[in-house]
């Protein structure tokens, strides 16, 4: 086994808090905490990867903290959590240094700041957050409880906005908002990342030269999804459409599902989104792709990975398992943070195409 990460409980000297404070005082406190930490143990090295600014409702911030605890090694190096409390007029804040010690290696120090703010602060939240972010590191903004005015205020000092379109009740407005944000910053959408294993596997399925021509004979795509995750399915359609050069398509609700079509190069493609109440976690439950040649390929969640099935025009069927562990919701959020440091050239095309289907 390689070295395991052992989180250390922060000691008394590594915690700071104050009421009715200012961003300048918080910034000063962070510097002092780091100096104290270093004086105690020179082996401590500050992680310097990215700033994560999280805007949450004060009432639910514990839940978000728990989610952030589950992201594994994909912790931001400095997390600034702005907890919004209705009616609050002053700032309370706390800062803590957490240490991850890798056995036989250096101890990594990460910083977490919680600033309690009022609604009145949101439109100018950048003036509070700006002094607290580590300069020259990418800054990611995530507002899981809404607060679009806070996100707008922070856009000019952030390079990446983390969203989860699955949380928006209306897929069309979720995609519209993603598109607006994409004009100002790089958008990482957890709904898009939920489709990643499916996209990888569909790409792999059609990769062998023998199967590749079938890509342009696709005439039907059905996506099953958790009832609240239809937007992930639309992004999957958008991905296929943008990559395969489908003409504009449209999707409309019909009999408890969403149906529609797109214009493929050689034939129309029937599209169907099917809610699956059995699906426990957000995201997709299964995909079935049919081609004009009579080939059907399906992928479904299964034990140890995705269960794959291919039926040829003569009705011969093959089944196999594509190995892979479920990432869980913590893993998805961690992946979102990691993706903030990368750039996915396929997303914007998929977003445009998906948005067009819902217009």
């Amino acid at each position, binding site marked *: 086994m390689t070295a395991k990460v052992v989180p250390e409980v922060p000691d008394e000297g590594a915690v700071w808090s104050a009421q009715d404070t200012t961003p300048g005082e918080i910034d000063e406190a962070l510097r002092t905490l780091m100096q104290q930490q270093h004086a105690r143990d020179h082996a401590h090295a500050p992680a310097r*990867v990215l700033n994560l600014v999280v805007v949450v409702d004060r009432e639910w911030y514990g839940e978000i903290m728990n989610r952030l605890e589950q992201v594994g090694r994909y912790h931001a190096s400095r997390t600034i959590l702005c907890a919004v409390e209705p009616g609050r007029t002053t700032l309370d804040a706390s800062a803590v240094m957490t240490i991850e010690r890798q056995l036989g290696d250096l101890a990594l120090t990460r910083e977490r700041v919680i600033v309690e703010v009022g609604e009145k602060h949101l439109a100018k939240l950048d003036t509070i957050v700006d002094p607290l972010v580590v300069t020259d590191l990418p800054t990611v903004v995530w507002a899981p409880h809404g607060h679009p005015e806070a996100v707008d205020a922070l856009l000019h000092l952030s390079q990446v906005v983390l969203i989860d379109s699955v949380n928006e009740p209306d897929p069309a407005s979720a995609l519209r908002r993603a598109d607006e944000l994409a004009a100002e910053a790089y958008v990482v959408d957890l709904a898009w990342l939920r489709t990643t294993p499916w996209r990888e596997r569909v790409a792999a399925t059609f*990769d062998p030269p023998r199967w*590749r021509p079938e890509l342009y004979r696709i005439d039907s795509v059905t996506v099953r999804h958790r009832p609240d995750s239809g937007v992930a399915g639309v992004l999957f359609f958008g991905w296929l459409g943008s990559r*395969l050069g489908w003409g504009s398509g449209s999707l409309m609700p019909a009999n408890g599902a969403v149906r529609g079509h797109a214009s493929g190069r050689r034939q129309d493609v029937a599209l169907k989104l099917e809610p699956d109440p059995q699906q426990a976690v957000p995201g997709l439950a299964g995909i079935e792709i049919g081609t004009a040649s009579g080939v059907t390929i399906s992928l479904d969640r299964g034990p140890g990975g995705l269960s794959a099935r291919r039926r040829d025009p003569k009705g011969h069927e093959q089944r196999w398992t594509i190995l892979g562990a479920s990432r869980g919701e913590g893993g998805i959020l961690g992946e979102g943070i990691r993706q903030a440091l990368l750039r996915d050239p396929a997303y914007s095309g998929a977003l445009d195409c998906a948005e067009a289907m819902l217009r």
Partner: protein
Amino acid sequence: MAVVQEENPLVEGLERLPVHPTTLVIFGSTGDLAQRKLLPAIYNLAHEGALPEGFNLIGVSRSEMSDDDYRTMARESIEEHSRRPPDPQVLEKLLERVRYVSGTFDDDSVFERLKQELGSFDEEAGITFNRIFYLSTAPNFFALIVKKLGDRELHKHPDADVRVVIEKPFGTRLAEALDLNRELLSVLHESQIFRIDHYLGKETVQNMLAFRFANGLFEPIWNRNFIDYVQITAAEDLGIGRRAGYYDESGALRDLVQNHMLQLLSLLCMEPPVTFEADEVRDEKVKVLHAVEPPPRDAVVRARYTAGMAEGKEAVGYLEEEGVPDESMTETYVALRLEVDNWRWAGVPIYLRTGKRLARKVTEIAVTLKPVPHLAFQAEGSVGVQPNQIILAVQPNEGVSISLGAKIPGTRMRIRPVNMEFLYGTSFLSQSPEAYERLILDAMRGDATLFTRDDEVEAQWRIIDPILEGWGKDDSSLPTYPAGSPGPEEASSILAPGQRWRAI
């Protein structure tokens, strides 16, 4: 008329590119390497969804056991050595695709049964899997196994790519390496042969290329005009453990210098390739190796550890280690001075040193720049101005540090060196994958960039072979160093005046 295959438009933006369905055959599948490294690496690829969507594993070894016995052994190895706790469902599904063939490698029936197993995987899936034969065996079996593969027509397939991965050591002398290459190439094409040097799978080793060729800062000074000397160190704090049988035949020079350290040297000194295609990179590396002359006798020091203190405990000397012959002349330490005779590097000494039972485990490359031409600062009361050093740390720390002269706070202008450090662990969220994960995946993809080509291996041996020949004629006793020390005092004799070894 040739049909032009359209690119797969779906791969754009995907981090994990499709890999053709593959059956991996491990010869020596019950051995230490398979259990500690290969099987855990395969599991971790499965966990991350990085294996091809069709994947099978066949173990081949002498031990008599059933498929189920081998699965049990594989499960235990993965549970013990995986870098993450295995997901029971993924592990179960992976093991369902595992089979085992027992027998000795000179037995034709082993290859017949192997052929049947490969065919049955193809038949069940209705596709032809690519084949990778991973030779994780003693080196004397490499040629034999490849010959047997050829005899049974397993070395090629009209509908699939067939590749052979070969572990080190690739020969013990130049003549042996040439023979082995000849034997392999009588059956296989060079493009089918993937010679592993697991150092090349390490992120920090690959980062040397990024460091050199993705930054405008360093390349202008990366030459004889600015660089004074280079030290490449691969020090181990451990002894030989239970590997006396292997190590006493090998010694430090063959174990680390002939392969890993010369690879580090070639990456450090190579010219920028036109593209990062496998052969472009390897062409540049081999040019460096061709520019290195075998060192003269007085530029090489070998030594052997004696009893001492290591890790706070008493440690026995090499000759007292279990299984080491009393009359052994095997070196556990070697230091040598090389030069790369080309336009960029002529006259720059490049020192290599490696050893067992040294003070600390560290692999690094230290590049020392020439001193500044004029010292305007007084050294009085301070360490003073020191030449800048660029340290590329490979293990256990992974990163780059640069020493700079800085003013000591106070009223006087006094200077001492400080370090500017980049540590992988502090700057990236991702955990470095094990080298074997990367290399197995590359072999399945057919990307040979991080594998050693035949002419590279031969060029490496041409540097090392004369040293071994000289040692073979030298009866004088070996210098020694106490276990847990930085190495023998004699190592300083190969340094140019004014130079010293970096502390281990």
